[in-house]
């Protein structure tokens, strides 16, 4: 399958999923609204804290707001377009990849795009509002904002693929993988200066919250060629490693001998 065919297939998957999600309009609106409310509620904590402390090791409320917005939009993009990533571990563990392996389509793309998380739209919406009202993005930095958001989404996706692909080797990793992913989100939502030493190193390597939140914030606030290159390179490397890991795991995949209808 050529690259353009893959893209066309991925686009068709996303479009089909979005249509399916929007078909249940009431449930969709409810999930979007509650996710947006969820994000706003969590931000109340920062609003209350920063009313008392104007700066937190150099970070102000607007900086935290930008961080929140970037992480929310990146995460929203990931679970809206590639919502299947959250179910990857179960697909592997239950032998449900059988049905995908028989299709003349790339397995990973199919597995990722076969679901869309409606609440992701709530993250997207609230994240964009956070960014727009932070006052930290100018028209001239819009292209950088797009790069930062896409890079963040790719890192989220890469981590999801890697964490859930552990099921190829370890079996049932559902709880562990979800918790690792939650940790990535948790760490990416706090200002970078709070973490130092080994933990900071970990946040730019094994649990790359730095590439989801901190570095994108830096790219927008103080744009520089090295920072943008590092962000793009980091996102591509993580995605490459995750795809490699999935492909290696797929070689070990034991069929579930499943006979079922699919589609």
């Amino acid at each position, binding site marked *: 399958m050529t690259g353009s065919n893959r893209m066309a297939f991925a686009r068709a998957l996303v479009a089909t999923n979005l249509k399916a999600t929007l078909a249940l309009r009431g*449930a969709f609106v*409810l999930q979007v609204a*509650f996710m947006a*409310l*969820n994000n706003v*509620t*969590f931000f*109340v*904590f920062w609003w*209350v*804290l920063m009313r*008392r*402390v*104007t*700066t*937190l*090791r150099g970070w102000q409320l607007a900086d935290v707001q930008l961080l929140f917005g970037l992480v929310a939009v990146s995460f929203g993009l990931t679970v809206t377009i590639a919502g299947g990533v959250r179910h990857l571990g179960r697909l592997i563990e239950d032998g449900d990849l059988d049905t995908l392996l028989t299709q003349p389509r790339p397995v990973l793309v199919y597995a990722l795009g076969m679901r869309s998380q409606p609440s992701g739209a709530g993250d997207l919406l609230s994240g964009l509002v956070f960014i727009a009202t932070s006052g930290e993005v100018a028209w001239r930095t819009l292209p950088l904002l797009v790069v930062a958001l896409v890079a963040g989404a790719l890192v989220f996706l890469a981590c999801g693929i890697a964490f859930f692909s552990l099921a190829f080797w370890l079996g049932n990793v559902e*709880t*562990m993988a979800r*918790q690792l992913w*939650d*940790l990535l989100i*948790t*760490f990416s939502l*706090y*200002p970078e*200066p*709070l*973490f130092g030493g080994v933990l900071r190193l970990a946040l730019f390597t094994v649990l790359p919250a730095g590439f989801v939140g901190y570095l994108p914030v830096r790219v927008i606030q103080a744009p520089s060629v090295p920072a943008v290159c590092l962000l793009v390179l980091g996102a591509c490397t993580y995605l490459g490693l995750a795809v490699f890991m999935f492909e290696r795991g797929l070689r070990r995949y034991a069929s579930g001998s499943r006979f079922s209808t699919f589609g």
Partner: protein
Amino acid sequence: MMRLAATYAAFSRVAIARAGRERGDLYGRIVFFAIILGVFSSLWRAAAEGGLPTATEPRALVWYLAVTEWIVLSTPPIHLEIQEAIRAGDVVYRLGRPVSYVGAELAGTFGVLAVRLPLLGLTAFLCAFAFTGWIPPARAFAVVVPFGVAAAALLAALHVWIGLLAFWLHDVSPVYWVCQKLMFVLGGLMLPLEVYPAVIQRIAWLTPFPALLAGPASVMLAGGGATPAALARDLAFWGGVTAAGLGWTFRRVARNVTINGG
């Protein structure tokens, strides 16, 4: 009476055995708890450097969070199990038992609490001490432990009530989310209520959330927070309201349950 108590105790024992087997979830909660306390101990240090103008020391705020998270993380998401039982139809055979359905669910939930509260309490103690190098006075623990356990039991009962709403709503996630958010802000999950604007504080005290979290946890702060008598009064009041709500809701839903098939 004794026989009835023994019956519910059996539900608790089954839940304890199950909770003991499902260790993955418990370990995950322990790790998450330790990380959250680590992040917040760093955050409070940074806030203190920035001149957080509260009478409370950063180390006391870490212990405050240790108590609120201990209560929240110990409480199992029983509403999801009830919802699934209703969706799958399993609730039918549970309703037919010669014991109260709500009572059995509560007994099971208390069984899970019996496993989680001590382990997560120990995690809270060790992590908070490791991150602050300080232990609050013993009399604070003498108040926090019993009232924290009572608050966790009340929170579990609240989750059972949310689960019962699945008879009407089918999906209770939105109700749970709202409850969770209200607990976050009005319960003072991460910040003591005193730090919030006066209007939020006034609204908060009209809800059960401060009694569940901020009340017991405030004992860790300078000044000692609420008195044991006030804590007992608030928990008893909201416990009564929750019990009445549970009874009323269950009677309403049980009256309208339609069972199809066999």
